């Protein structure tokens, strides 16, 4: 059991986390923008998350918290 939580308002939409995710479960939210005007990322299949924190490691803006 693992999960990631995105602080969407801090996300700048650089998507470095997407390239780092070994499970390729991070996607761009198509339905919303944050206050900065960026489309944040989201994980729709959280059950596939292994809590490896690679996404968070590459995030320049401390958007991601990881639980395991």
């Amino acid at each position, binding site marked *: *059991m*693992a*999960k990631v939580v995105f602080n969407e308002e*801090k996300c*700048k*939409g*650089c*998507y*470095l986390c997407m*390239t*780092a995710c070994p499970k390729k479960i991070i996607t761009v939210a198509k339905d919303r923008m944050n206050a900065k005007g*960026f489309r944040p990322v989201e994980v729709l299949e959280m059950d596939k998350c292994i*809590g490896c*924190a*690679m996404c*968070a*490691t*590459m*995030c*320049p*803006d*401390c958007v*991601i*918290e*990881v*639980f*395991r």
Partner: protein
Amino acid sequence: MEQVFKKPEALCDVNLHYCPGCTHGIVHRLVAEVLDELEIEGKAIGVAPVGCSVFAYDYWKCDMQQAAHGRAPAVATGIKRVLPDKVVFTYQGDGDLASIGTAETVHAAMRGENITIIFINNAIYGMTGGQMAPTTLPGQVTQTSPYGRDPKTQGYPIRMSEMLSKTDGAAYIERVSVDCVKNVVAAKKAIKKAFQTQLDGKGFSMVEVLSTCPTNWGKSPVEALEWLRENMIPYYPLGVYTDKTGE
């Protein structure tokens, strides 16, 4: 479930001003994580430079002092000589450290000044809008090398880690990169070791971090990481350039 990753305590809870995908943010976080893990936030004094990271004083919870462009090692020297038991570090870009502040950098190393320098090398001047940096690669197009940097007329890129590793006063110098998870992990290890070098009173330490500038490179953040890997790392090989900490 246990939280295994969160914003480090020593990092202020503010939005960093950097462009989306700029790896400054990663390095800021790594420094903060090291301040947390070594429990030195309360005894650290950071020196913020002029350059893209000019607002660095707002990002760490430790005391911060500004420096003029290139002078951070001199300012850090002044602070350290007053407070030898405190931890003093600078955070500088390539224009700052390797061009206008070369003398200050070299002599801080020569003195074995017991400070830590985090040196961001992204091969371009970010703050002023993408001019040629001392570390701009041969052939690299910038605003002031519009036909690509030609070493015959514009000189060669400067390899600071190699150069400083020849100084007697440098205790620990490593070049790292933040282009991928593995390298980010290695970068943090290097930064931690640099601070530990200072805590042990062993002298000058510097970590050169190969970093991206997607905006001025004209690349997406993901492309920028690839460009760094393919172009910068071959010219600026990663690794430990000097390590006298075991002596």
